[in-house]
C-alpha cells in the first residue's frame, strides 16, 4: 500500500552557489528525469537520513521536464549539511505537498505582479518560469525583487539573461543600501511598490518574503487598488508530515502543509493571527 511518508532517493546532480548563503540544488531520479510531477507553489520534504527532514518549496517550474530544483538558505542543521555536501550525493525527497498557486484558475489571463524579498523568490520562481513557458496565457508581468545587497539577489544571472529578455516582463530590482557597482534602485520592497504606480486592473499580485516585508507590502498594494482577493502569498511553518496529520503547522483550523502553503489574503483574514 502506498505510504507518502516513505521518500524517494534522488541524486543531487548540480549545486549552484547563488548568494553567500543560498545554493540551488538540482535533483534527479537515479535513472534520470524527475522524481515526481508538481504544480507551481507546491513543496517537498527533503531529507538527509540521520540529519533531518524539512519542507522546502520546489523552485523549478513543472514545465521543466528533466529535473527539480530547490533554492535553499543555510540556516539550520539540515541546510548546513546540504550546503557542505558535493554533487553526486543522494538525498531523499517526498511530495509534492500543498495547494499550488492557481495558475490555471484565478491567475489565468491576468496581469501578474510578483513581489519577493530574499529567499522568498524561491517559491515564486516556479510560477514565473511557468508563466514564461506559457507566455500567451498571461498578460503583463511585473517582478519586484529586493535583497540586502546585490550579492544576496538569488538567481541574478537568470533574472538578467532570461526574465529581462522575456516579452512584456518588467523586472524591478532593489537592494537595501547603496553599494559600489550598483546603479539600480535602492530601498525596501514595500516602498518600491508605492513608487512603481502599478495598475491593479485585471491583475493579481503574488507576494513572498520575510514576514516584515509582507506586512508592509500589503497596505501599499491595497493603496495601488489591489483587493485582498487579488493578492496571494505562500506561508511557512514547521512541518513533520506534510499531510495535515502531525499537528504542528496549523493556523486556526487550516494546515499550512495541505490547505496552504498558498493562501489568498482574504482567506488569511479569516484565520487567527498566529503565524
Amino acid at each position, binding site marked *: *500500500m502506498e505510504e507518502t511518508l*516513505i521518500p524517494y532517493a534522488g541524486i543531487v546532480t548540480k549545486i549552484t552557489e547563488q548568494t553567500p548563503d543560498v545554493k540551488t540544488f538540482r535533483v534527479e531520479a537515479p535513472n534520470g528525469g524527475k522524481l515526481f510531477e508538481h504544480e507551481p507553489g507546491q513543496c517537498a520534504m527533503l531529507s538527509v*537520513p540521520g540529519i533531518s527532514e524539512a519542507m522546502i518549496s520546489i523552485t523549478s517550474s513543472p514545465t521543466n521536464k528533466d529535473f527539480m530544483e530547490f533554492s535553499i538558505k543555510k540556516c539550520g542543521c539540515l541546510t548546513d549539511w546540504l550546503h557542505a555536501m558535493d554533487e553526486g550525493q543522494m538525498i531523499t525527497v517526498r511530495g509534492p505537498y500543498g495547494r499550488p498557486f492557481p495558475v490555471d484558475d484565478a491567475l489565468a489571463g491576468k496581469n501578474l505582479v510578483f513581489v519577493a524579498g530574499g529567499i522568498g523568490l524561491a517559491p515564486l520562481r516556479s510560477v514565473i518560469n511557468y508563466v514564461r513557458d506559457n507566455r500567451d496565457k498571461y498578460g503583463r508581468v511585473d517582478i519586484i525583487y529586493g535583497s540586502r545587497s546585490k550579492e544576496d539577489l538569488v538567481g541574478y544571472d537568470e533574472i538578467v539573461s532570461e526574465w529581462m529578455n522575456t516579452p512584456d516582463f518588467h523586472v524591478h530590482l532593489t537592494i537595501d543600501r547603496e553599494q559600489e557597482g550598483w546603479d539600480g534602485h535602492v530601498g525596501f520592497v514595500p516602498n518600491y511598490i508605492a513608487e512603481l504606480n502599478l495598475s491593479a486592473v485585471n491583475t493579481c499580485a503574488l507576494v513572498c518574503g520575510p514576514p516584515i516585508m509582507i506586512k508592509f507590502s500589503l497596505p501599499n498594494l491595497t493603496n495601488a487598488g489591489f483587493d485582498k482577493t487579488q493578492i496571494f502569498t505562500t506561508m511557512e511553518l514547521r512541518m513533520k508530515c506534510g499531510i495535515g496529520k502531525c499537528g504542528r503547522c496549523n493556523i486556526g483550523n487550516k494546515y499550512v502543509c495541505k490547505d496552504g502553503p498558498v493562501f489568498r489574503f482574504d482567506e488569511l483574514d479569516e484565520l487567527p493571527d*498566529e503565524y
Partner: protein
Amino acid sequence: MKKLTNLNAFFAAIAAKQALYLPVDNSVGKAEYKKWQDGTVYSSALNTARSAKDFFFPQTENLMEFKMEGKKIDVIDTREECEDFVIFGVRACDAASFDILDRVYLVDPVDSYYKNRREHGTVVTLACNRPAETCFCGAFGIDAGNPLGDVTAWKVEDGYVLRANTEKGEALLACVADLLTDTDDAAVKKEQEKLRAIMAKLPLANLTTDGVGEGLTKELFDRPEWAALSESCIGCGTCTFVCPTCQCYDIRDFDTGHGIQRFRCWDSCMYSDFTKMAHGNPRVSQLERFRQRFMHKLVYFPDNNDGIFGCVGCGRCLASCPISMNIVKVMKTLAKGGNQ
C-alpha cells in the same frame, strides 16, 4: 445478544488464536493493558491509566530504514502486515477516541501504519457501571452504558452479556460460540438504568459544550481568560500524554550503527519547540501553546469534522495535571460569556 458466564475460558479461547490484551493491575495499583496469559487477573479498575490509543498509534514506532553508503542512499520499506489481536475492556470514551483518530489517520492520504493495526485489531468494549467523579463523556454525547466497538460487553449480576456490532465482532464471537448462550437485553437494560442514575449525580453531569464548538475561532481566540487559564501551566505535556485523542507526532532519525532508523513518536503542542523553526516561533509563550491545545479540541477539530469534538471526556487529564488545570475548567470559563 449472548450470555457469557466463564470469562477466563473466554479469554483462553481467544488467546489461543490471537494476542489478547486487557486491563491488568500493575505493581503500583494502576491498570494497564497487558497481554493475557494463563493466570492473568483481569483488573476491576474503571479504566487504564494510559489510554488505549497505543494499540493503533503507539508511543514510538519505526517507519523505515536507510542504508547509507558513500553518496548512495537506499530507502528500505520495513512495513509488515500486523498480526490479528483483540483488546478487551475498552470503555466508551476510549472507543469513541478511535473514531477521532480515524478521522485524522484514515482520511486521504491514509496513514498505512495506523490502518494496518486498525484493520487487524478487534475491539471489545465494556459498558461502565461505576463511573468516576472525573468522568464527563456525556458532555460529548457518548453513552457510557452503550459503548461502540466490534463487540460490546456488559457486566451483569451473573456474568457478561455480549453483542457483536461489526463483522469482525461476529467472527470473534463465532470463535467462542460454545461458551455463549442466547439471552435477551433485560439484564443490560437493568444495568443501564442503574448507570444512568449514578451518572446523573456525577459532579460533571451538567457540563455542556455551550460556548465552544465549530465556527467560534474569532469569538474565542482572543478571549482574555486564556492568560489566567494558562498562567500556571508548566508545559509538562502530561495532558497530551494521557489523552486518548491527542495525535500529534514527531518524526526523527536514529543512527543504529548499521544504518538510519526513521521513527515516529508522540509529540505535544504544549512543548516550546513544537513549532520552533530556524527563523522563529509562532507560539512564543505557554499561553499560545495552551490555547492551541484547547482550541484544537474544542473549535478547530469540530470545524473540520462535522462538529465532532476532539475530547471524549475520559477525565485522565483531570486526574493527572500537576497544576489541576484541565479542559473542564477551560470549557466552563469560555462558556461564561467573556467580553463580547
